[in-house]
């Protein structure tokens, strides 16, 4: 019998568990065009909704006349704020403790704001009817600059808040001010800065951009008037939270609401928030008694649903003469647009911006963030990042470069000199976090060696000389970044959204023949959950990943969880999966011992089976145990093999990475070419290396777009100047650079399998790498700071202003 048992390694490989580059099970349907997205859903009698939107960024709505629209054949209803007011749904709560107009109530505050909702028999009629709704506006002065918005004589944007000097996050000191959030020790930091050898100061702007998922936001709301049940299929990154919030604001009992997130074509934070389209579709379905679909178009997506970033970060960093950092000070002006609709944990109005000390051992630090209203779209979502971690990483990685210039020091050396050392973990940061683990020096040295850093610097110096001699017009930039993220929100003790604790869950049922289904509180938007969570489970319970179905997104069947964003799926739901798997294994152990007629303690786990200690020829495989669990009467053990785990993480996880970008820049045309991009990620235990590589490619490409051209730009009138893909930069295969990926492994000490999450690292790490490369190319000619995005025009302008055009 023993000879027939394949060796451990062979059996482990057959499971396709942790570490296997198993192909994505989702791709069979996605690559054949067989995905099932919300717009694929067609319900009998379904109507279509479309918005009348404001062309003005700030105006009073004097009248709305929908008579002509209603007279158009096929139009069923036109909803305005006046129709929603009796239901108290003309305003809705935002995730940040503010409130937002569902439909314009007296005035509009940003271009593209929802003014009326037309419901018609098809989307073409709805679009025609939108043109027939006559809205009379009276223009008001527009403020798109968050600094001008705080002037004494700035127009009052939020008249609903006039006179209210207390907001959701403390005192407001101006009619367009939302909150001030302070972390760290202000006095101590100012005193350190005041007596430091060297202080570098700079304004770092991380411009407004947009997650722009390929699939825009949308939903199908369906109210069944017979059984009183509301079903909403939609592009929701957090279906359970949507259910609870929908119940709280509509008064419909939570068991009568079913939220279903089908396949989602990319989220990147854009699909975390609650939008007027969802509310209007639900109301329209309740009113008409038939399903109502709303799908936004690309322009609507870019100009109205959830932008990202828009942080003005004034920084000061101090150091000794030889480059030991002594203090960091940051004041951020956060442009939140017309309503504060950021999707951050409630106690963190600026997200985890206080991770801005980065990878460095900075003994004293202070951060203050002021949120400000402007006439721009609301949002402030975490675009492929964990709640403002991208802003924090960009800030510190730019400040390090600025300090290196001030010190006249090599930026790689300055970083290495200040990294938190391996023996300092767990590390308490000056701004309040406990970094769980890290080994920055090892990763950094590996990265520098991989790109031949010294060789590159030599080449760069030669290039500068050649440029000065007029032999070339191309400059060479070496963009360095060492980032530390904080992901996996989060411990319920300090992480909640609208009071909902940020735990997550997994429920497993083993079928009698030894296959399984596991359901989670998260929802994949392209991350490959059906592939990777099955792998975690395969290693825990010894059943092949191929025999495990993963299901998410239906609140009637999945256990409660807070969804997928902020790289929380693996750190939180992945941990729940492992813990639930361990509960299965514990019961399986009792069953195996019974079947083998030995004591529980006399069997031990061996990849896919329990064996009798000292007698490995005697074993029961998980398949055998699964069958017995259902079909054999075992004294004291109830039938079946199921488990559920709700996991409240003890801490966040802290993935990190070292990214290096080598860029050629043409001083005369502003064109750039990415010669090399090296990305080393340490995400702890690696579940599926192929998926990690895919995540890094995707995230770095988004980072490339953000750094090199992508933005949501406004003119002084509040017009969105980049509302289409003609103007909003999305890289295609033509522009996308080639990436080299690498890794180190520093497992998280508190996560059941040591995993840390990786989906967002490449967006967080690549933006400063690209941007630092641009800056570095011009360092020899005196450039200190130039704001993103570094499109061709802006780079050309930098060269011109430095006098390089001769």
């Amino acid at each position, binding site marked *: 019998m023993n000879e027939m048992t394949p060796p451990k390694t062979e059996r482990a490989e057959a499971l396709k568990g942790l570490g296997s580059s198993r192909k994505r099970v989702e791709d069979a349907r996605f690559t054949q065009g067989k995905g099932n997205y919300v717009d694929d859903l067609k319900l009998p009698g379904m109507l279509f909704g479309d918005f009348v939107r404001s*062309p003005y960024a700030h105006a009073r709505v004097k009248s709305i006349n929908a008579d002509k629209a209603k007279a158009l054949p096929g139009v069923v209803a036109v909803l305005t704020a006046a129709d929603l007011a009796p239901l108290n749904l003309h305003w809705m709560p935002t995730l940040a403790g503010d409130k937002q107009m569902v439909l314009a109530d007296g005035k509009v505050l940003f271009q593209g704001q929802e003014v009326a909702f037309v419901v018609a028999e098809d989307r073409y009629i709805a679009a025609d009817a939108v043109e027939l709704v006559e809205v009379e506006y009276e223009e008001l002065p527009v403020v798109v600059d968050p600094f001008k918005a705080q002037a004494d004589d700035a127009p009052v944007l939020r008249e609903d808040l006039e006179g209210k000097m207390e907001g959701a996050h403390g005192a407001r000191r101006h009619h367009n001010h939302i909150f001030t959030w302070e972390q760290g020790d202000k006095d101590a930091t100012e005193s350190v800065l005041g007596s430091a050898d060297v202080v570098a100061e700079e304004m770092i702007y991380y411009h407004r951009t947009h997650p722009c998922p390929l699939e825009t936001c949308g939903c199908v709301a369906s109210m069944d008037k017979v059984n009183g049940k509301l079903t909403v299929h939609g592009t929701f990154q957090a279906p359970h939270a949507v259910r609870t919030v929908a119940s709280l604001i509509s008064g419909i009992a939570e068991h009568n609401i079913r939220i279903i997130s089908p396949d989602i074509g990319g989220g990147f934070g854009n699909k975390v928030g609650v939008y007027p389209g969802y509310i209007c579709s639900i109301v329209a379905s309740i009113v008409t008694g038939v399903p109502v679909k709303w799908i936004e178009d690309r322009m609507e997506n870019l100009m109205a649903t959830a932008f990202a970033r828009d942080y003005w970060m004034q920084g000061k960093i101090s150091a000794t003469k030889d480059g030991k950092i002594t203090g960091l000070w940051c004041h951020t002006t956060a442009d939140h647009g017309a309503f504060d609709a950021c999707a951050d944990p409630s106690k963190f109005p600026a997200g985890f911006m206080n991770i801005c000390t980065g990878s460095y051992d900075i003994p004293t630090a202070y951060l203050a963030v002021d949120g400000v209203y402007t006439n721009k779209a609301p949002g402030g979502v975490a675009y492929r990042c964990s709640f403002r971690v991208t802003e924090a990483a960009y800030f510190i990685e730019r400040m390090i470069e600025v300090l290196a210039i001030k010190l006249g020091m090599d930026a790689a050396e300055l970083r290495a000199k200040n990294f938190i050392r391996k023996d300092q973990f767990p590390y308490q940061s000056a701004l309040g976090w406990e970094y769980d683990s890290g080994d920055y020096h090892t990763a950094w040295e590996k990265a520098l060696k991989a790109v031949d850093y010294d060789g590159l610097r030599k080449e760069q110096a030669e290039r500068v000389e050649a440029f000065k001699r007029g032999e070339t017009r191309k400059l060479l930039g070496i963009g360095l970044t060492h980032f530390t993220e904080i992901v996996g929100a989060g411990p319920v003790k300090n992480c909640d959204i609208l009071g909902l604790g940020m735990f997550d869950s997994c429920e497993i049922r083993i079928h009698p023949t030894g296959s399984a289904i596991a359901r989670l509180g998260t929802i994949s938007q392209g991350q490959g959950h059906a592939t990777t969570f099955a792998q975690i489970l395969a290693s825990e319970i010894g059943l092949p990943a191929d025999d495990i179905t993963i299901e998410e997104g239906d609140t009637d069947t999945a256990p409660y969880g807070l969804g997928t964003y902020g790289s929380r799926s693996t750190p939180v739901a992945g941990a729940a999966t492992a813990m639930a798997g361990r509960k299965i294994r514990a019961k399986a152990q009792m069953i195996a011992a019974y079947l083998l007629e030995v004591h529980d303690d006399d069997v031990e786990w061996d990849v896919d089976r329990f064996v009798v200690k000292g007698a490995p020829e005697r074993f029961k495989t998980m398949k055998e145990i699964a069958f017995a669990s259902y079909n054999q009467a075992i004294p004291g053990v109830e039938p079946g093999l199921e488990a559920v785990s709700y996991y409240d993480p003890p801490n966040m996880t802290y993935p990190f990475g070292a990214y290096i970008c080598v860029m050629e820049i043409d001083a005369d045309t502003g064109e750039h070419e990415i010669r090399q991009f090296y990305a080393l990620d340490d995400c702890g235990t690696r579940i599926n290396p192929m998926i990690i590589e895919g995540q890094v490619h995707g995230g770095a490409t988004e980072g490339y777009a953000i750094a090199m051209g992508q933005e949501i730009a406004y003119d002084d009138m509040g*017009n969105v100047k*980049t509302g289409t893909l003609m103007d909003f930069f999305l890289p295609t295969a033509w522009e996308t650079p080639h990436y080299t990926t690498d890794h180190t492994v520093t497992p998280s000490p508190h996560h059941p399998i040591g995993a840390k999450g990786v989906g967002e690292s490449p967006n967080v790490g690549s933006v400063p790498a690209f941007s630092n490369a641009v800056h570095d190319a011009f360092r020899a000619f005196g450039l200190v700071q130039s704001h993103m995005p570094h499109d061709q025009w802006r780079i050309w302008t930098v060269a011109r202003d430095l006098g390089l055009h001769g």
Partner: protein
Amino acid sequence: MEMHDEVRIEAPRARVYEALNDPAVLKQCIPGCEELIQHSDTELEVKVVLKIGPVKAKFGGNVTLDKSDAPERFSLAGEGSGGVAGFAKGGADVELVEDGDATLLRYTAKADVGGKIAQLGSRLIVSTANRLAGQFFKTFKETVEMENAATT
């Protein structure tokens, strides 16, 4: 956005000024003008079909003329709405300088557009506006010169 240019028109200043105030001439010269109603000596209502990039929309608006410095100067201001396509507002200062038998027409026009037309056509707006202004004065010059030639 601002536009300025100079056109030489082979007609006396009084004639040019008169033409600038003639609704029939204006209607003929304004690109895409479908309707032009004179409400008073200084107030006009205009309906124009405008095409900027992919957006084509009918704009309705009111124009107010300022004739206080006639006949050396002439200015106008107006605003219009194109429904979901957006809105436009602006003005122009026209200076008429006698140059022998001819007239030099110098203009400075200022225009702001908002809404979908501004978003979709942002990269096209300046060039489109310049083209429209150029087209107006070209037609205007031809019309006035033709009429002038016919009557002299």
